[in-house]
């Protein structure tokens, strides 16, 4: 398929791998931020083609995985209310809250709808004036513009029955949290191409400078990934720590100004709890005061809940790159996509699910 097959070309991948083998002299740990990158690395079998000195660490960039339990419980609470249509991206439905999942609520009669765009939820609100339509606005910076736009659109249409349950997280503060963790093992990063398409690359310069780590903004296809890894390793071997852009066909230095404007109009930055990691200052978006009446938390008076994580799930260690999914004693036994203990086993972009579904052939992973 045009614009895809070029980036899945075996010869190009092998050429980069050859160059990579030629320059690497010592072990390096590189974190790919985005779950989409993890998925592609595993699905295409890139991991076992890399030089043994290079370890890829799978970062926290899966929005489903880092959405804390209490917000999932909020969504479940709303979905169970008589007059509410809860709209969500498909991935979120199977994630268990502290009790049930949205899929189970749907099965027991809750009006839960899968949508592909938040604007579909706005349309539903217009079509169902006697119902409250809530969109579960989950995601990183990538989905924030469309989610923000849905609020702007609802406001323009004068809809009183639309609101969003915002659960947005931001990449740079999470990178800062990982790098300042005393247990940090990461030498370099592949930054998430789609996040940078929106936000640009400027905000990564201070991180590269402060922590002296190379950051390569990278795409999602095999050629993108091996090129990104090659660029990061080149820097590590040379001892530089620059922000480089492998994904130049999508990412511009300033990002998408219009999208950023919409985000800043509708959202404000706030502290956020990341599932498995904990609270990171200024790492999320909440609905701004200007659009407060579209904030489902305020509209439905949702109180903050303290929900403990399942102690058997080591998602936090996986998301920080301290453990590989198959190093978890419950991987593939007690924790499977059908019966997940934690979110990384649910989303198609979660590291545990990627390892489960596409377990590397050479890897000694026993899946029941």
């Amino acid at each position, binding site marked *: *398929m045009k614009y*895809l*097959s070029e980036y*899945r*070309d*075996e010869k190009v*991948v*092998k050429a980069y791998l050859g160059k990579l083998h030629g320059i690497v002299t010592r072990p390096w740990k590189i974190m790919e931020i985005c779950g*989409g990158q993890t998925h592609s690395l*595993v*699905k*295409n*079998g*890139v*991991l*076992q*083609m890399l030089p043994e000195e290079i370890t890829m660490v799978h970062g926290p960039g899966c*929005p*489903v995985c880092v959405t804390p339990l209490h917000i999932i419980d909020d969504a479940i609470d709303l979905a169970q209310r008589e007059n509410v249509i809860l709209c969500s*991206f*498909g*991935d*979120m*439905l*199977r994630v268990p809250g502290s009790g049930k999942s949205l899929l189970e609520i749907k099965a027991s009669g809750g009006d839960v709808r*899968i949508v*592909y765009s938040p604007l*579909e939820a706005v349309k539903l609100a217009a079509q169902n004036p006697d119902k409250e339509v809530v969109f579960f606005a*989950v*995601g*990183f910076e*990538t*989905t924030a513009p469309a989610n923000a736009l849905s609020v702007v659109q609802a406001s323009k249409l004068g809809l009183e029955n639309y609101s969003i349950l915002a659960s947005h997280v931001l990449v740079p503060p999470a990178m800062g949290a990982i790098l300042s963790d005393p247990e940090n093992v990461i030498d370099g990063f592949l930054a998430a191409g*789609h996040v940078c398409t929106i936000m640009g690359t400027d905000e990564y310069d201070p991180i590269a400078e402060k922590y002296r780590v190379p950051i390569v903004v990278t795409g999602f296809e*095999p050629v993108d990934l091996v090129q990104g890894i090659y660029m990061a390793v080149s820097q590590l071997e040379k001892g530089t720590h620059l922000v480089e852009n492998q994904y130049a066909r999508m990412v511009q230095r300033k990002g998408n100004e219009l999208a950023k404007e919409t985000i800043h109009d509708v959202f404000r930055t706030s502290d956020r709890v990341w599932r498995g990691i904990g609270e990171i200052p200024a790492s999320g978006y909440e609905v701004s005061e200007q659009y407060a009446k579209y904030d489902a938390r305020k509209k439905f008076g949702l109180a903050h809940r303290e929900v403990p994580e399942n102690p058997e799930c080591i998602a936090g260690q996986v998301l920080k790159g301290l453990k590989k999914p198959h190093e978890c004693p419950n991987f593939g036994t007690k924790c*499977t*996509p*059908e019966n997940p203990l934690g979110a990384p086993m649910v*989303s*198609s*972009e979660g590291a545990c699910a990627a390892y*489960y*579904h*596409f*377990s*590397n*052939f*050479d890897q000694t992973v026993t*899946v029941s």
Partner: protein
Amino acid sequence: MTGSKFSFQLDCPVPKFDFDMITLGHGSGGLLTHRLLDAGVFTVFDNDYLREAHDGAYLDLQGKTAFTTDSFVVSPILFPGGNIGELAVNGTVNDVAMCGGIPKFLSLSFILEEGLKMDTFSTILQGVQNACLAAGVQIVTGDTKVVEKGKGDQVFINTTGLGPVHTKANIHMSRVRPGDVVITSGLVATHGIAIMSVREGLEFETVLLSDTTNLNGLVMELLDAFGEDIHFFRDPTRGGVASALNEVTKSIKVGIDLDQRSIPMEEGVEGACEMLGLDPLYVANEGILITIVQREKSDAILHLMRSHEKGKNASIIGEVTEEHPGQVVIRSTIGGRRVVQMLAGEQLPRIC
């Protein structure tokens, strides 16, 4: 006898109903039921078996018979490239054929929801009959029930099919051996993506059509020509190609190696899968079969399939191996290898 050798006039009598929609009375067994059946089912499917108007059909069966049943609940009931009626016939015809059977007779049971428009029901009946004519099968018995509004989803259909097993057929999973070759008769994931595109209101530039069709003609030609060299057939419907092949590897403890590059797909379907984050190997198919065949005959089998209308996009997609028993392993486009698992739950579209 093969379905493909028949030449049918595909226009069947259009049922004429003197009411606009299905009501509970149509399932009462009384006058309204008879009016529905007389104007609809008996007119459209008219044949000697139905003319008996008995509680069931008398069939003259000899020898080994393939027998299968399936229920159809697809939503929407009318979709690009077909409708639930065609699907209900093709699905059961294909299941009989996958057993090496020559499908002959079908039962047809409707569960209709009160309020179903008669125009829609009429379209579905014609879909059933067109598919029957194309496959060379007859509806010989059936049933119609009506449920209250809200207790169904417009139409559910159950069909049961049977037919004599081809004399040269020896189709068993246990006959699959290391060294055998895995072939798909056509493009993967077409039906599932066509359904999803209308179900979810996705507007692609190209309208994606379901490829629902009967495969009994293709199967019979393959069995006529290659008999015992065909070890296994499966129509990879729900769960897709990945689940069908995993059933084989897990049941008889062999491995299967697939090659991503040789899996044929329509470009629009491939693009839709990329956009939605769906793996085409798990998407449902209704117009293709997977066969596992003797290696020495695989080229000739592929050649025959490609010469048949229903197999023109056939492709060798992999082989059976002694290695990694219980697992399907795919070689990616860049040469990496990964395990293809059985589908867990429903494939859900991803966030970004």
